[in-house]
């Protein structure tokens, strides 16, 4: 059986958080969620070594997804990040610049997202 991966999902839409959470729990992930960048960052700081991967929205209150990517890449370089953009090219480009491991555009196919996560984690451990 595959190891249980731990992910953090940050998005300011309650609905998206719930949908993602349900889906990933069913897929046997351990899931934490935050509805803005600051709360996400606080979760990371209390359990810094726990997370394998972060999925983050980009346009959010207080710390944006781009901010999260920059901070995480500096402070917790081991954690992988997928940025999800729905706002045209500017934020997406900024996310790549900040060195997100993957930038995906909405709408997101969750089955596909699951595959990309496994790919990312496995390519990192090789």
């Amino acid at each position: 059986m595959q190891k249980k991966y731990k992910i953090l999902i940050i998005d300011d839409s309650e609905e998206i958080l719930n949908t993602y959470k349900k889906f990933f729990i069913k897929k046997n992930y351990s899931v934490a969620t935050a509805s803005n960048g600051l709360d996400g960052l606080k979760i990371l700081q209390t359990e810094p070594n726990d997370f394998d991967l972060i999925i983050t929205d980009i346009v959010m209150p207080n710390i944006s997804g781009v901010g999260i990517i920059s901070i995480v890449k500096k402070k917790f370089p081991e954690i992988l990040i997928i940025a999800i953009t729905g706002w045209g090219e500017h934020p997406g480009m900024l996310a790549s610049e900040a060195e997100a491991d993957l930038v995906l555009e909405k709408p997101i196919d969750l089955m596909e997202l699951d595959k990309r996560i496994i790919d990312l984690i496995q390519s990192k451990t090789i």
Partner: protein
Amino acid sequence: MQSGPPIIGVSPAIVRVTDLINHVADTGLNIVISGETGVGKEVIAQNLYQKSPRKGKPFVKVNCAALPEGLLESELYGYERGAFTGAEQKKRGKFELANGGVLFLDEIGDMPILLQSKLLHVLQSGEFAPLGSEKEFKTDTWLIAATNHDLEDEIKKHKFREDLYYRLNIIKIYIPPLRERTEDIPHLINYYSQLYTSQFNNRNILQPSSRVLQKLSEYYWPGNVRELQNVLKRVLVLGSWDDIIDGFDYGYGSSNAVRQKTEQVQPPIPSSNNFLFQNGQAPDLESFSLKDIKKNALDKVEKEAISYILEKTGWNRSRASKILKISYKTLLYKISELGILPPTT
């Protein structure tokens, strides 16, 4: 340890902002601080700087609304000798002066669109060129911007570049107006009473009664904390809260009241006995001082004159400064110092 001017307040919004500052002050990521006039945007910027590793390096402020386009450009980037007629000496720009530290761009929403493009280029490349220079220079400045405009609105009106907006808003700090966090009012009064008491010859500010506090929390506070400071100073001069809170315009914010107010603009007629007898009440002989009365009277006349011209010009501050024959900078200073408030829309 000095860590910036104090951020007073117990409201969830202020607690949250303080928490956010503590989490991002060491990141050096671009920040936009937004909120109405007088809510404390500059205080927040100072706190970010003082809590960052850049503390002790320069903190350079540029007010993007205070200078016309050409001057703002040379202020920011500097110029080489001979870059244009009149450029007899090379001038270093604020980007250069802020190197290693913080560049605080105040009123970023007022930056002309061409300069926005130039700023975007600097942020993308990390390099800037002084006017008339062939060479680009590397810059390591932490950019903190402030605005009391709704930038998203400005984008819709094509007054603000969307790509610049996203590049600046890596971190957003929004400070709500004082009327939405009235639980902060008693704490601010406490803090500033003590401060002013020591500044104004130890004259004590009367603690507001619960009736007064109630009134204070019903008021609209269009000038936010700065206006509260001015109110406190007036209480200090007058020795009483009552006249001041009775003079509040509680209809502020309802557009009707504002419209009425602007329709009734009358030229100011100073009448000298007003300054002595506030609302018909004789002055307190204990605290009587000619100096205070003079300052008070002068402030009042200036305030009336400036308000009158501002309303006549529809708050076109550069036109108003020309009519008043004072510099634009002086006008901005007086507006804030005298607590002159723009009509809300």
